[in-house]
C-alpha cells in the first residue's frame, strides 16, 4: 500500500459545533454557487438575493407567506427524517401527501354542512394522516414481509398517486371534481366548517399543527423508551434484534408514521389555504423538498422547523424574481445545491482525519456500513 499523508476514518460522535457548522456552510456554499451562476448568466446577484430576502422576510405579509410555504415542508421534513433515521428510505412523501389530500378532501366533501367545526376539522385532518399512512403501507408491508426495496416502490407510488389525483379532478367526474366548474376542471370545495381558520393574512393554524408534530416527534425519539428502542433499531438492526426488540414491527411503525406525517401535510393544505383538492397546487415537489429539509436538519425534528422556514422562504421568494427578469428556477438550483453540499458535508461529520502514526498496522473497521446506503 502506498503511504498516505492523511488517514480518513469513520468516527462515532462528531462535536456539536460541527453538526451546526456543516448545514450553515452548505447553505452559504450553495448561495455562493448560485451567485456565480447568476453572474455567469449576466445577472446582478446582489440584486437577486436582496429581492429574495425582501420577498420572503421584508414585510409581515411576505413573512406570513413564507410560513404558509413552510407549513407542509415541516411535515414532509418530519416524514423523511423519522424514516431515514430508521434507515427506512421512504422517498414517497410526494405520493403520501397527495393521497392524504385525496382522503382529506373526500371527507371534507362527504361531511354534511352542519358538522361542527371542531369535529369537521379533526376528521379532515386525521383523514389525511390515515390516507398518507395507507399509501406508505403499500411500500411498508412488502418491505417488512417480503423484503421488497422501498426506495423504488415509494418512488413509483408517487407517480401513481399523482395520476390518481389528476384523474379524480381533471380526468373524470368524480365526487372530488367541482360540478359547477365546467370550463376548467377544478376540485370541489370542502365544507366551510372543515376549513382551518386563518389568523394572519393567509396563515392558518395548520402551522401550529405542523410545529406540534415536529416537537412531538423530537420528544418521542429523544425522551421516551419507545424512542430509545427505535434509535437502537436505527443504529443497528442486529443490536436491536439481540436486545429482543421486534425489528419488523418497529420498521413498519416508523414507515406508517412517516406516511401519516406526509399525509397530514396534504390534509392541512386542503383544509387550509386550498379549501379543495387542487392538483396543481399539490404537485409542487413538497415531498422531495421535505427530504432536503430533513437532510439539512440532519434528521433532527426540532431543527426541521427553522430549516423548513428557510426552504419556505426560498419557495416564496421564487415568483418575486420574475419581476426583475430572473427565472424562478434560481430557487430550485439553490435548493438542489444546498442538498448536494449538505449530503457531501455528512462526510465531514461522519469521518475524522489524522496524520498516520509510525508503524500503525490497525485501523478501526468501518463502523457504519448501512448508514449511508
Amino acid at each position, binding site marked *: 500500500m502506498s503511504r498516505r499523508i492523511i488517514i480518513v476514518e469513520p468516527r462515532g460522535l462528531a462535536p456539536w459545533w460541527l453538526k451546526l457548522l456543516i448545514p450553515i456552510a452548505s447553505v452559504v456554499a450553495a448561495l455562493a454557487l448560485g451567485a456565480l451562476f447568476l453572474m455567469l448568466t449576466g445577472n446582478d446577484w446582489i440584486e437577486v438575493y436582496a429581492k429574495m430576502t425582501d420577498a420572503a422576510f421584508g414585510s409581515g405579509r411576505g413573512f406570513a407567506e413564507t410560513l404558509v410555504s413552510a407549513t407542509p415542508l415541516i411535515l414532509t421534513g418530519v416524514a423523511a427524517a423519522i424514516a431515514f433515521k430508521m434507515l427506512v428510505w421512504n422517498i414517497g412523501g410526494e405520493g403520501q401527501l397527495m393521497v392524504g389530500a385525496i382522503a382529506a378532501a373526500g371527507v371534507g366533501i362527504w361531511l354534511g354542512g352542519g358538522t361542527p367545526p371542531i369535529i369537521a376539522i379533526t376528521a379532515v385532518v386525521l383523514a389525511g394522516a390515515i390516507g398518507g399512512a395507507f399509501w406508505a403501507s403499500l411500500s411498508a408491508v412488502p418491505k417488512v414481509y417480503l423484503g421488497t*426495496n422501498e426506495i423504488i416502490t415509494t418512488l413509483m407510488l408517487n407517480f401513481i398517486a399523482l395520476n390518481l389525483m389528476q384523474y379524480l379532478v381533471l380526468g373524470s367526474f368524480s365526487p372530488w371534481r367541482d360540478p359547477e366548474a365546467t370550463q376548467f376542471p377544478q376540485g370541489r370545495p370542502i365544507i366551510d366548517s372543515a376549513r382551518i381558520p386563518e389568523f394572519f393574512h393567509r396563515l392558518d393554524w395548520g402551522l401550529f399543527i405542523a410545529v406540534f408534530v415536529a416537537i412531538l416527534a423530537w420528544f418521542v425519539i429523544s425522551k421516551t423508551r419507545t424512542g430509545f428502542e427505535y434509535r437502537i433499531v436505527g443504529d443497528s438492526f442486529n443490536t436491536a434484534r439481540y436486545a429482543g426488540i421486534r425489528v419488523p414491527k418497529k420498521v413498519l411503525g416508523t414507515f406508517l408514521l412517516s406516511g401519516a406525517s406526509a399525509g397530514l401535510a396534504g390534509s392541512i393544505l386542503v383544509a387550509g389555504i386550498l379549501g379543495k383538492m387542487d392538483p396543481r397546487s399539490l404537485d409542487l*415537489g413538497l415531498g*422531495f423538498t421535505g*427530504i432536503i429539509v430533513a437532510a439539512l436538519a440532519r434528521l433532527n425534528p426540532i431543527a426541521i422547523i427553522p430549516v423548513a422556514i428557510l426552504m419556505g422562504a426560498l419557495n416564496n421568494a421564487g415568483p418575486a424574481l420574475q419581476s426583475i427578469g430572473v*427565472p424562478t428556477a434560481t430557487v430550485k438550483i439553490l435548493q438542489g445545491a444546498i442538498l448536494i453540499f449538505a449530503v457531501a458535508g455528512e462526510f465531514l461529520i461522519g469521518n475524522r482525519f489524522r496524520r498516520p502514526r509510525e508503524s500503525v498496522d490497525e485501523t478501526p473497521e468501518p463502523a457504519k456500513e448501512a448508514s449511508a446506503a
Partner: protein
Amino acid sequence: MNDSVLMLTVMAAIGLGTPIVFATVGEILAERSGILNLGVQGMMLFGAVMGFWATFQTGSLWLGVLLAVIAGAAISVIHAFNSVTLRVSQIVSGLALTIFGTGVAIFIGRAGSSPLVGRPSREIFEPIFPQSFADIPLVGPLIFGHDALVYLSWVIVAIASYYLFHTRPGLTVRAVGEDPASAEAAGINVSRVRYIHVMLGGALAGLGGAYFSLALVPSWQDNPIGSAGWIAIALVILASWRPWRALWVAYLFGAAGRVNFTFQTLEINIPSNLLAMLPFLLAIIAMLILASGKRARLLGSPEALGVPYYREER
C-alpha cells in the same frame, strides 16, 4: 399496411421509447457497478437543454448531441464524488442531482433577454433513409423508418450487452457491483470502475434528454422530458439489469404512451392518467413478484447496489 394502427403504434413506441432506452441502459451500467443514481431525471434535463442550446447556436445536430453527452457525464460527477469518494447517502445525493439538474435546465432555458423557451429547434433529427425504402411493406418502416439516434440506440444496447456479459472489463464491472471487496483483492480499482460507469450513465442520460429536445419535442419547454428519468429507473428493474431487455421494456412503455391515442382512434376511451400509471404500476408488481428479498438476486440485482464501499486500509 404501413399506415395500419398497429404499425403506427409500433413506430410511435420506438420513437417514444428511444430516449428511455438510452437512459435505462445508462442507469444499468451505473447500477451494475453498484451505484444507484436517482439523478437520471436531472441529468436528462441538463443534457436536453445543453443539446438544444448547442444545436440552436451552431445549427449542428451532432454538436448538440455531443454537448448533451458531455453535459450528462459532467453533472453525474457530482453524484460519483458524493457516493464513491465521500461515500454519503446515494439516495439523497441522487435526489439532489435531480433537483439541481432540473433547476439548472429550466434556468438556462429561461435566462437572458432572448430565452430559449418556446423556440423551435433549428434542426431536428429526421429518418435517414429515403422515403422509398420506408415504403416497403412491413420491414420498410421498421428497419428503414428511423432517425440516426434510433440506430445509435440499437448499437449502444448491443455494445452494452456484449460489454457486460462477454468481455473481461464487463465482468470487472459486475464483480465490483456484486462484491467490491473481492474485486479490490483481485487488483481492481473499485472507485475508478464506479466513477467511469456513473459517468457513462450520465452520458447516456444526457443523450436520452437530447433525443427529446432534438427529435421528439422540437421546441424548448421547461420540461420536455416528462418523467422519463423516473421511468428509466423503474425500467432498470423490469429489465432485470440487462440492456436488451431494457430495449424491449422501453418500447413497451413507449407503446403505453401512444396507446391512449391508438385507443381513441379505435373508439376505446381510457383516461390518460390511468394509462400513465401503467409503467409505475407494472414496475411495482414486477418488484413484488420477482424482486423481493432473496429473489432480487436471482433477477440480477447487484448485491452491493447502493452500499458504499469502504476500502480496507492498512
